[in-house]
């Protein structure tokens, strides 16, 4: 028998099997992802929408707008709710229980879903506050060691990976998050260091500005 020929045939056969197996695995993963996306859309449309609004555009400032939010940030927050490591009162009151209903694949799919939604347009507000907030957002407040928000959240407050989108977010929600982070009710070491010296007026101004974007 021609041993090299047999060896080559065996290698070809193994390669073919591997490709088939890989193809099968990819197909299974795709099916799982599609199933997770469908489950996530159902959860979003029947449960999340109750507070966060259709497509993640909430009307009440108690609840953040999720449309267009950064996918990584959303997934991280849902896991923080589920793991109860995000501990401010509102997280406890509204999200801890809801997040326990989600498995890991649905968390990722929900993050994908909301990240893909068209964000709400900005809301006009108090011009004086917006002007002050714009300066704070773009230039920071060196006297109080507040770095420009834009350096992490992007020039248009569009967010970046784990840094959340702020554009179009409810001003009251932004202020509340700044408060709970500053008081360390919400664990966020980077943000706590950045905003520890910002005062209430500064919070209002920057929140009014990002809401207008």
């Amino acid at each position, binding site marked *: 028998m021609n041993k090299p020929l047999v060896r080559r045939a065996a290698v070809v056969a193994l390669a073919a099997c591997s490709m088939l197996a890989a193809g099968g695995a990819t197909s299974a993963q795709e099916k799982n992802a599609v199933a997770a996306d469908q489950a996530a*859309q159902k959860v*979003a*449309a*029947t*449960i999340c*929408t*109750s*507070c966060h*609004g*259709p*497509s993640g555009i909430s*009307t*009440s*400032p*108690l609840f953040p707008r999720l449309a267009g939010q950064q996918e990584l940030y959303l997934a991280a927050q849902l896991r923080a709710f589920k793991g109860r490591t995000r501990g401010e009162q*509102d997280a*406890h*009151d*509204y999200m*801890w*229980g*809801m997040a*326990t*209903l989600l498995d890991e694949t649905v968390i990722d799919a929900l993050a994908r879903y909301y990240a893909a*939604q068209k964000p709400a347009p900005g809301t006009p507000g108090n011009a004086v506050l917006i002007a002050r907030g714009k300066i704070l957002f773009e230039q920071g407040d060196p006297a109080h060691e507040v770095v420009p928000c834009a350096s992490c959240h992007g020039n248009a407050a569009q967010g970046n990976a784990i840094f959340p989108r702020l554009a179009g977010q409810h001003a*009251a929600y932004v202020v*509340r998050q700044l408060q709970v982070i500053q008081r360390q009710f919400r664990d966020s070491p980077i943000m706590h260091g950045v905003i520890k010296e910002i005062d209430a007026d500064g919070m209002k101004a920057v929140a009014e500005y990002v809401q207008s974007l």
Partner: protein
Amino acid sequence: MSCLRKPVSTRARAACGLVLALCGTAAQAVPAYARQTGQNCVACHVSFPELTAYGRWFKLSGYTIGERQTVPLAMMAQVGSTQIKNNDDGTGTDTPVTARDRQLAFNGASLFLAGKATDDFGGFVQWTVATEYKTDGPSTTHGALDNTDVRWVGRMAGPTADDIRLLYGLTLHNNPTAQDVWNSTPAFGFPFTASPTAVGPTAGTQIEGALAQQVAGIGVYGFYDKTWYAELTGYRTADGIFSVLRTGQDISTPGGVARLKGYNPYLRLAYNREWGPNSLMFGGFGMTVDRYLDNTDPDSGTDRFSDRGIDVQYQYVTNPHTFTAQARFVREHQDYKTSFAQGATSNSSDTLDSLQMKATYYYEHQYGVTLSHFALKGTADPTLYPAGAVTGSANGSPDSRGYILELDYLPVQNVRLMLQYTAYNKFNGGSDSGYDGATGRSPHDNNTLFLNVWIAY
């Protein structure tokens, strides 16, 4: 207010008093739902039982949001003390107006079976044990089915499937408006709880508690785009296969429960708008019932009561400030086609108007103050509203009006300490002493201070 409609026997009054006592504890806060959703009470309630926008959605969704619980039980209990301004009935017989004045009194305890059964089916069933305190004998404690509402719900998605465009469902319940989600309607309207022993105005419309836990309501509803709500329900006597809905009621004593002829229609329409932290609802409702004079006698003939109401609710819910206001006006046309023929009323028909308004402020869902105004105004009918110590009327008029001031403190989310003061400017047709036509009692003598502790688990 009172469910008394016409002169009835002492036993019937006692039975009605028991219903009233149960009505007094009828408001719900169901911790089983908090366990089901994993959310805090504040997600659904401004302060229990007043619902937030999300709480309304939860209820209309058939209580199905969340994870089904293995043991979907919850409990509630109230204990309080009532102090009436003048506890002497003025007859010279040393008879008190209310039992256990200025003493601790049990205001009822409830067990709930509540929550999700499937993704499309859920509800709550409440069993309440309450004590009836009597001024002329020993107190009695009695258990009965309280407010109950079970639902099947369906959902229709919008064009993009990102939202529920139409939420619709079927409801089976035992108290008109207990199925409603706005707290401007009677069943879960203010006051959310009241003294079990205080005296109140004699008159009251049918839709404001007179049929509670005595009827079966079978309804269909739809909530479109979170904007338009419509509901059509038929109410019938809770007998036959529906008799479980009035378990514990006195059905053998004349006047013990209401008995209706056939199915009686109830229609509800509401416009709802939510923007920012605000929500606003304008609505109307109507119910017409044919009620037998004697629930034990199917040949006793019926009177027809036609209730037409309008209501409005506004809520501003943020953290830490919450402000809410509700108002309701009900006009009841009372066609006494049978009662008048039998001499039980002075007129062949009467009208009774009922107004209820309240405004509430809460700080951090913990410290609350509520001011309410109520008024009853109707046709004088000396046979229907005769003279008599305390609960009578000198001029046959049902007119009453007054105010309620309530202070609330919730040290934890499921415990409420409340101080409620009810003041009357007019009582059963009179504003001055002698309003009852039998004694020198004045409306102010019925002013009541009620201290209550309300615990839910």
